């Protein structure tokens, strides 16, 4: 269904046409506003709770890389550009302001796994179904050279 394929770092990402190349960028909106590429995935109903039910959980599980951020957030953009620059096509979930709080809770639960709640800050990055952290953490992991291995492990990168 969804898989990331390696691409050259300079390549910009455009919303795919159906399943032509098998790459999917999920942008689920909880409001029918015009903002960015349109979604081609139906994995989430985009309800007020930010995905509703198991939607979020499924997103996290099914995407090698998932970025959850506020709509129009520039830090989210930074995360996206960093990942794209590495050759990764992240799935991006943009949340509206009023849905934030609920989503934070949900994500914390998902990330906690065994019930331990982690603090979730936006933009939040999930790799291989696990919460890596916010931009702080992402930068640190990248500088220490650990990011690319994690990405490869999650199947987000081939090389």
């Amino acid at each position, binding site marked *: 269904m969804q898989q990331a394929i390696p691409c050259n770092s300079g390549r910009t990402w455009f919303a795919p046409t159906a399943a032509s190349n098998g790459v999917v960028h999920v942008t689920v909106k909880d409001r029918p506003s015009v903002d960015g590429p349109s979604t081609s995935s139906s994995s989430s109903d985009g309800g007020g709770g930010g995905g509703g039910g198991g939607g979020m959980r499924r997103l996290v599980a099914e995407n090698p890389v998932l970025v959850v951020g506020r709509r*129009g*957030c*520039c*830090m989210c*953009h*930074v*995360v996206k*550009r*960093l990942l794209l*620059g*590495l050759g990764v096509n992240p799935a991006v979930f943009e949340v509206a302001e009023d849905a934030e709080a609920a989503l934070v809770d949900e994500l914390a639960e998902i990330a906690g796994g065994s019930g331990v709640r982690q603090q979730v800050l936006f933009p939040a990055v999930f790799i291989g179904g696990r919460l890596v952290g916010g*931009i*702080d953490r992402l*930068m*640190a992991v*990248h*500088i*220490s*050279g650990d*990011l690319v291995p994690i990405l490869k492990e999650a199947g987000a990168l081939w090389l």
Partner: protein
Amino acid sequence: MLQGPAGAFHVISSPNSMSSASAQFATSRRMGIYEPNHQISMWGDSFKADSSQNTGASTIVEADAKHDNRLGDIPRESSGPSKKYDQEAHKPADKVLRRLAQNREAARKSRLRKKAYVQQLESSRLKLSQLEQELERARQQGVYVGGHLGDSTLGLSGTVNSGVAAFEMEYGHWVEEQNRQTCELRTALQAHVSDIELRMLVESGMSHYDNLFRIKAIAAKSDVFYLMSGMWKTSAERFFLWIGGFRPSELLKVLSPQLDPLTEQQVVAVCNLQQSSQQAEDALSQGMDKLQQTLAETLTSDPLGASGVANYMGQMANAMGKLEALVSFVNQADHLRQQTLQQMYKILTTRQAARGLLALGDYFQRLRALSSLWAARPREPA
């Protein structure tokens, strides 16, 4: 010399002859009627009386436009002028009159200009001393003054941003300590001290950088634009400014040559670090561009104001929110700098790290010195 009130009398005289000539003046003015003969004879008298007179001879001219004056040609410089005057007094002298009138006019204008210039100088001087006083007062309060005073940070009106002032002071101390540590490192490396001692110096150096990022974080909350402006740095340093500080990749370029010899493993690690920091930098830069773009978009949505005040306020609130993001950017940039330094520390041996820190400290010292030199360079007069 031309002196006296404009248009009434023009006396070209040397100091010596002044008193005698002026006495003659008074008389002729009161008379009100210009009689050439009388005038000239007065001259003659005055000159005779003051035979020691030479250059800058007194020339008495009655500037009375009512009368059709006919003056003899009055030589400006003469010795023993009496005879000459008698001879030339009766020559028709329209040209002379005209010339004299022009001279008077020129002299008058010159005096007016001089007066205006002097007034300007006086008021400038006053203003300058006022400014100096304010500056001194502000400096004593530890307020940051210098650079772009027009900023909202603070003006000379005395509104103090204490966060900025505190940072300025702390940063000043930080630089001093930095210089001291750099010297210490230099001495230690030259003296080939043991690794243990070097390690202590290196760890001090690393935690010193941590201090910098800490005080910057506090300042960012207080006034992010101040940090971003780089006004707390010297001018040459400012040239290299990237999101409120130095570029991590630049830093590595400065360090790398100083670290040889490196093991192969280290070479790879440094290379990877170079690449990672560059990638992170690029991502942050792109984020900044996006921020600029969205901020601009927020502010340009409704130039006609057609959507009303509420909408305007909404836009402003929106824009304010966007500006908040700048704090994050500065923090992330500093975080990147810190991470880069720490990663280098992990890759290198103690001795290499010491050399690296020395190279960095020395580099920044030179930049600051360059800024001073530049500021003090001789400039062509405007």
